């Protein structure tokens, strides 16, 4: 009885971990597929699945047999010592451990000798990444009839633009929301509850309905198409959640700290700057991750407020453009997706230790 306990514990933890591992695997399979595809050629992606890179059993071609000139392909033909009709060859003829299979049309096809054996598809290429980073090739015919290959746009410009949008769009709402959260949590003024409810209620306003009115205002103010416009838009849409999240965290800070600070004669600003900000770092960092990822991945807000300005493409817009006017270069999306993923991943992992703590902000009333 006593000896069973560690075993039981081991088994149950094994079960839990096993299930978790399985869920993780299922969850990441599409990403793995995308990663594998980003190293494969367009035609390969089209003809075989990405999982064929793993060793598997399949019919592999070992030889080709072509009917001689003049053989009537409408009658039984003798190829490699066996005689069958076109239809029979097309369905595949089993000879020992080999299969004779007609490939293609009756008029121009041939018989392939295949063997069932272990195989793996290992044709990898870096071409997709090269085209995304350095720009795709396209050929144009010059006036004298020669063709030249020119490089298309690369991604570096849009990377910088995205940074120029994402960093201020993360810092501004955090700064404003931290002030607001402190005010709502620790300052007494009339209408405080109503104002706070109003801010929280703004969470449910979908940003799509606000796009055109805001665009109209920006046009009147003459700031449409500038970075300032996008910063303001992201700030506005990000503030309600930021205020709510930070309020929950800041209002949970121990009252004693504030009281002793007041007694020592500290003003609200001193308390905010010296006490609240350092204590709220986990919540600030976790919201910074949220907001940064959201802005980095945003397509719509950027498209509407800055998309029409030449030379100010964001990464998401560039990613959409990579596929070309008619979507002919869809295979480049795989590589493009992984390249644009790098920065958010870096941000996430460098701030990750705050993330879990911040997520719990205000969730447990104590």
């Amino acid at each position, binding site marked *: 009885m006593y000896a069973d306990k560690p075993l039981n514990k081991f088994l149950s933890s094994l079960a839990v971990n096993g299930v978790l591992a399985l869920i993780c695997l299922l969850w990441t399979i599409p990403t793995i597929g995308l990663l594998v595809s980003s190293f494969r050629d*367009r*035609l390969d992606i*089209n*003809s075989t699945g990405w999982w064929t890179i793993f060793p598997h059993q399949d019919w592999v071609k070992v030889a080709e047999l072509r009917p001689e000139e003049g053989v009537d392909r409408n009658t039984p033909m003798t190829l490699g010592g066996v005689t069958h009709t*076109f*239809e029979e060859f*097309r369905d595949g003829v089993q000879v020992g451990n080999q299969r004779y299979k*007609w*490939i*293609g*049309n*009756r*008029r*121009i*096809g041939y018989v392939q000798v295949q063997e069932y054996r272990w195989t793996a598809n290992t044709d990898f290429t870096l071409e997709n990444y090269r085209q995304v980073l350095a720009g*795709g090739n*396209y*050929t*144009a*015919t*010059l*006036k004298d*009839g020669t063709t030249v290959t*020119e490089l*298309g*746009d690369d991604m570096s410009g849009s990377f910088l633009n995205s940074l120029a949008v994402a960093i201020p769009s993360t810092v501004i709402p955090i700064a404003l929301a931290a002030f607001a959260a402190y005010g709502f949590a620790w300052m007494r003024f009339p209408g405080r509850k109503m104002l706070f409810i109003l801010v929280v209620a703004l969470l449910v306003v979908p940003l799509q309905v606000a*796009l*055109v009115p805001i*665009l*109209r205002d*920006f*046009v009147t*103010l*003459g700031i*449409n198409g500038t970075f300032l416009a996008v910063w303001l838009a992201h700030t506005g849409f990000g503030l309600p959640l930021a205020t709510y999240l930070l309020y929950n965290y800041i209002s949970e800070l121990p009252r004693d700290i504030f009281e002793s600070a007041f007694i020592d004669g500290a003003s609200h600003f001193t308390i905010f700057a010296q006490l609240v900000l350092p204590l709220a770092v986990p919540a600030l960092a976790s919201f910074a991750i949220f907001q940064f990822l959201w802005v980095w991945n945003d*397509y719509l807000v950027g*498209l*509407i407020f800055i*998309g*029409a*300005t*030449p030379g100010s493409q964001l990464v998401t*817009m560039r990613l*959409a*453009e*990579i*596929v*070309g*006017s*008619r*979507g*002919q*270069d*869809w295979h480049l999306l795989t590589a493009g997706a992984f390249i644009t993923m790098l920065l958010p991943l870096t941000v996430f992992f460098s701030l990750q230790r705050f993330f879990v703590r911040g997520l719990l902000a205000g969730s447990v009333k104590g």
Partner: protein
Amino acid sequence: MSKKLFNLVSVLVLTALILAACGPAATPAPTEPAQPTGTILERAMAGEFKGAVVTATGPFVDQDAQKFEAMIKEFEDQTGIDVQYQGSKEFEASIKAAVTAGNAPDIVDFPQPGLLSTFVAQGKVTDLGQFFDRATLEQTYNPSWLDMAMLQGPNGKIMAGVWERVNGKSLVWYPKKAWDEAGYKIPATWDEMKALMDQMVADGSTPWCVGIESGAATGWVATDWMEEIMLRTTSLENYDKWVAGTLPFSSPEVKNAAEVMSDIWQDKYVYGGQAGIVKTSFSDAPLPLFDADGPKCWMHKQGNFVTSFFPEGSQAGVDYDFFYFPPLDAAYGKPVLVAGDIWAAFTDEPAAIAVLEWFTHGSHLKSWMQAGGAIAPHKDADLSWYGNDIERGVAKIIQEATSVRFDGSDLMPGQVGAGSFWKEMSSYVAGAEDLDTALKNIDASWPK
């Protein structure tokens, strides 16, 4: 005290300055311009609008945008006007927001007249008729193009735009090398094509590759087929009535066209079977023509843009070629279905109008035609300007056509042409509903 006053004054001055900056720009005093001579383009070429900036947008991006930049540079060098183009993959959404907010670029490239007509009806588009003379335009355009640019505004029909580039649609692509090896002949009539299809089936292969999947636009390929067959089975009057909404989808003419199409879109004739049509993306559909083990299908009907989806390195005239989608009934001649890009102006600034006037001359497109990827609708564009035989051939087919009609779904109202027509045809092809239901549903969706 005086310091306080000074502060107060400076605050007031600053406020006034800010208010002035936010307010509408002061209108410059009307200077009497020197009596203009010549057309707006001639004045632009003389340097009259030097330094002006014209903003432009459109749906083409990446390589096409680069070819456009290369082309427009010639204009910029000659006139000193700066044309700033920024394309968008979500063109339709972004242009709608921009126009609604009163922030439209000066000139806009519309791939379909349908969307443009919405803005014309709202009275937002400049009437080009006040700048251009129709008789002059007829020297460079076939009158039917000019007619197609006349759209209904709030105060009657206006000349809403100028055509710049076109696509030929009535083309069937085939793998030339294998085709010749197999000894197939290019069909000149519908019956020859049907015979060829049966011959291919007897040879153990499938004749057609068809794919109509295209994300949110799934089904547009089917509407192209319908339009082709409509042009081949009924009169042009009926086609125009159908596009205008007076000939319903449930009429025998339209139903017949759908049946002729389904007659080809059968399991034995289409690679992947009828069920595969809806699942195959239009961009991947032509690839089986180029399969390493020999063509898996032999024919693919699509506009001339499809060559950009062919495998890299495949050569026109060697690996692939095209023929004209054969006529069905001799009574209706050799019609050609086209689509094209029309440029409209949202301003009456002369510099912007000068760009549009430049577009009305075939010669402006010369460098793009040379580079490949553009076909001119202009009469004064020379066939020898094309950089490749494929585009020259397509241009020739358009020129030799007995009748040219624009892609009907692009002309129908958005709810139908970019909505129910796509959706219902997809449901019908997928076998989710029968033909009568599909056609009835399209009729029901037509805006009253």
